[in-house]
């Protein structure tokens, strides 16, 4: 037992180290926001033992919108998106505090629409960590578990640290002018996501695959060829690039 625990701890430490190195590498280079956030949500799945992770930003139009998700499955994306009206993500953005529930079934009064919707697709617990920059809250990191335990203790602090790195990543991109910096950066990030959705649609239709597989193909092509995810997506939509879907590599995340 002890050995396996130590192994798990060591593997987790490696994942954590890898994640921070990757994020740091990304931030000093010319990077793609969606790519950065995609890395981050995938790392959270490994680090916190949760089943699904999403990162939502409050858009310029005052609504929460999904920027990155550990799965592109429609029902999951809809669950995230549902929180435009109510849910832990919206609460985290409004309060600036971590919002959790260990038992979504009993929390149906707290979130009358979101709670049952989450339970219906198999989630029992949720943790929402705000993305904060000084006084401003720009979105939240949203983690779902199938068991009755939200992210607690040191893991919660770690999740907040990762959320802070994400915030810096989103807002750090250089802008032509310094004014309205936050709004411009957010706008850029949100626009990137629109191109990715369009590209997913193109691939899903062309190859008769689901949105999840279409996204995996975009991500694979981007990483294998060291291209920005948004650039790959744009080339796909413009018909300049046809990533291979037929032969996924075994090392695909």
């Amino acid at each position, binding site marked *: 037992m002890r050995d396996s625990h130590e192994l798990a701890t060591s593997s987790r430490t490696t994942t954590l180290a890898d994640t921070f190195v990757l994020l740091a590498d990304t931030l000093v280079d010319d990077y793609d926001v969606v790519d950065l956030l995609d890395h981050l949500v995938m790392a959270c799945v490994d680090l916190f033992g949760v089943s699904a992770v999403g990162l939502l930003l409050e*858009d*310029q*139009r*005052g*609504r*929460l*919108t*999904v920027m990155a998700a550990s799965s592109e499955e*429609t029902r999951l*994306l809809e669950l995230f*998106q549902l929180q*435009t009206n109510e849910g832990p993500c919206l609460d985290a953005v409004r309060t600036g505090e971590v919002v959790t529930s260990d038992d979504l079934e009993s929390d149906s009064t707290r979130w009358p629409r979101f709670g049952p919707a989450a339970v219906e697709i198999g989630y029992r617990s949720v943790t929402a960590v705000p993305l904060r920059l000084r006084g401003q809250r720009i979105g939240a990191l949203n983690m779902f578990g199938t068991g009755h335990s939200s992210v607690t203790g040191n893991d919660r602090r770690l999740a907040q640290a990762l959320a802070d790195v994400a915030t810096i990543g989103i807002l750090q991109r250089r*802008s*032509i*002018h310094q*004014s*309205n910096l936050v*709004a*411009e950066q957010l*706008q*850029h990030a949100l*626009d990137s*996501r*629109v*191109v990715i*959705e*369009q*590209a*997913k*649609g*193109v*691939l*899903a*239709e*062309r190859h008769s695959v689901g*949105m999840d597989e279409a996204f995996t193909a975009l991500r694979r092509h981007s990483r294998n060829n060291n291209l920005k995810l948004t650039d790959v*997506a*744009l080339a796909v*939509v*413009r018909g300049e690039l046809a990533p291979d879907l037929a032969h996924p590599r075994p090392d695909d995340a």
Partner: protein
Amino acid sequence: MIDRDHWVQLLSARPAEGVSRPQRICELCVEMLGVTGGGISVVTAAGNRGVVCATDDVAAQIEDLQFTLGVGPCMDAVSSGAPVMVNDLDALEDVAGARWTGFLKTASEIGVRAVFALPLRIGAISIGAIDLYRDTPGELSNTQLPAALLAADAAALALLAAADDPLDQLGEGLGEWPARGHQIHQATGMVQVQLGVSTEAALLSLRARAFSAGRPLGELANDVVQRRVRLTLEDEG
């Protein structure tokens, strides 16, 4: 403070007879966002460009000037896909300023003190830019900027439909944008392949289909993504 829903209603309302939708959107920005004037230009992928509208002579000159010179905030907004905000023309000392010397000089002479260029863009669809200007320096406030971005969305949708616009269901599209946004964009990509058309034409076809079926755009997009509905060229007449 500009109430979002009220602003969407204003932007979506049918303009008075003889006033084009882009023109009305620029006028609303002048009425509500504390800017002196505004104009819209289209820049197509093929490089064709043209001024769509302007609220006054100065706004018209800002548009013309950039086409004549080939540089300026509007051009940068189109090429980068990001908003370009010049809060004070006289205080501009960076790289962009150096590239825009001719533009800045003339703009300054005709009384422009601040200019905000927002790209009209829906993912891979790039249409042009809306330029708002002020005759005094000063940035767009935290509430004015989001409202201006929403106006840019409205203008983008209006211009997409302008080709042959029997639709006029702008409000619906704009209101649903965030809620069903990802599915509208996914469906656009799918329809682009189904019809073998451009991304612009695909979004236009989706809107046309939603309109003729009397259904919300987001609901139709959901059906397309779930593969319950396919668009064919016959549908388009």
